[in-house]
């Protein structure tokens, strides 16, 4: 595994895992020095994919760095990883109550999980969004709404299990500001799988993971005939834009992004390794004070 597993390196990591899905895989994280919510949730997704392809839990060698282990513990990684990996559980560390964890890694496969996430995040989001990002106190509501909609995407469209996690960081070197990073990933049927029956015909030969992503992400298409459906992702994009954030969605072989001026991610990347489900990453930067 790479030394750093975050929103910039998770695609390459998942690509490699995708190509090796039929093989026996050892996840060697001993030299991992840095991991963010995208990395942690991506690692769970990768382990889950390898495990279901091989019929047995893949081995995970946990990081040697005590800092990384401590961080993984604070994010509740080990609790989720035990269901996905064969691993030696690290010695239980005392977890400090003071941290910038907004939402520990949480498995989602039912609506009550969304309720629990929204209830849980409200107790912490207010303090972190105001003190770290400089957002108004009322921003906890649109933040919770955004989290609710992005998690429902798993239940409503993916029809498969998934995970969510969120954390605040000081991106001192990269941006000179605090950010909140949110990651939501599932291994369901993905955007193309969700939309094919209803919409592929009109695209003809052009129908692909990238056109399916464009249809849902940019135009709000959904498999439902109901005109009230398909607005969740649109509203998330709107809110992320309001906060000058970055949102990107990978599904299958493509990734689409709404890119703010502080980031240089491509708006569309194609030709990635085929991966089930959808992987959504959101980065919300601190407000620039006038």
């Amino acid at each position, binding site marked *: 595994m790479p030394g750093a597993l975050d929103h910039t390196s998770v695609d390459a990591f998942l690509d490699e895992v995708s190509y090796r899905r039929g093989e026996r895989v050892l996840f060697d994280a001993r030299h991992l020095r840095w991991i963010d919510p995208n990395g942690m949730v991506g690692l769970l997704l990768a382990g889950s994919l390898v495990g279901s392809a091989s019929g047995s839990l893949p081995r995970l060698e946990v990081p040697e760095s005590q800092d990384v282990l401590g961080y993984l513990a604070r994010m509740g990684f080990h609790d989720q990883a035990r269901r996905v990996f064969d691993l030696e559980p690290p010695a239980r560390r005392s977890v400090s109550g003071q941290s910038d964890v907004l939402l520990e890694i949480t498995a989602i496969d039912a*609506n009550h999980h969304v*309720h629990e996430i*929204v209830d849980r995040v409200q107790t912490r989001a207010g303090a972190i969004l105001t003190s770290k990002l400089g957002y108004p106190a009322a921003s906890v509501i649109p933040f919770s709404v955004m989290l*609710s*909609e992005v998690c*429902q995407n798993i239940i409503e469209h993916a029809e498969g299990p998934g995970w969510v996690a969120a954390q605040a960081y000081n991106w001192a070197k990269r941006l000179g500001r605090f950010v909140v990073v949110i990651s939501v990933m599932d291994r369901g049927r993905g955007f193309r799988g969700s939309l094919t029956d209803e919409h592929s015909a009109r695209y003809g030969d052009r129908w692909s993971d990238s056109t399916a992503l464009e249809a849902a992400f940019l135009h709000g298409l959904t498999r439902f005939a109901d005109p*009230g459906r398909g*607005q*969740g992702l649109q509203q998330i994009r709107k809110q992320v834009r309001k906060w000058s954030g970055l949102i990107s969605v990978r599904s299958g072989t493509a990734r689409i992004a709404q890119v703010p001026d502080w980031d240089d991610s491509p708006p569309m990347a194609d030709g990635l390794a085929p991966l089930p489900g959808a992987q959504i990453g959101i980065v919300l930067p601190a407000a620039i004070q006038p």
Partner: protein
Amino acid sequence: MSAHAPDPIAIDVGQVLQRSVTSLYSSLVTRPTGRAVRMAIETQLQGAGRLSISLIDFSEVGIIDFSCADEVVAKLLQQYLQDEARDALFVFRGVREPHHAQVEGVLERQALAAVVEVAPDQFGLVGTCSDRERGVWERLEHEGSVEAQAVAQIVADEEDEEALESLLARGLAFRSPHSGRVHALSRLVAHLL
């Protein structure tokens, strides 16, 4: 109320949420939750007459997401606008600033509009409506109600008349079939506030 006036009904969405879904959650999130709450509201409305006006109160709701707003506001309105057998009018209360974007968003998506209490005793039209409709609605809201023969108080020309008819058809104002008097919905629920 007389046979020609709508039956007034007050519905506290916070209580409906507690009763119909679970007592553990105070947030109106997820589509199944919204659907369950809408169905519980519809059950309450079944007990009303052919013509009813409901005050749907969100004051006790902590968070409402777009999926729930679509189920509890947009689908509720849409359903009764299409219902030939019953006329159900709605006023929404407690749509505080944090809920406003969600309610407005789902209404605009389906070109709907609703009468909403935006501040104590202050009502507004939220959603999609023309400038003419908004102008006529605001004059009616100011007057409270106008007699059939005094409609000129709120409509200045033919386009305004069309706008008033549209407001009536969209369930944003009420005309008594008996007297022809036109009422602002906020006045019809005033005693429920």
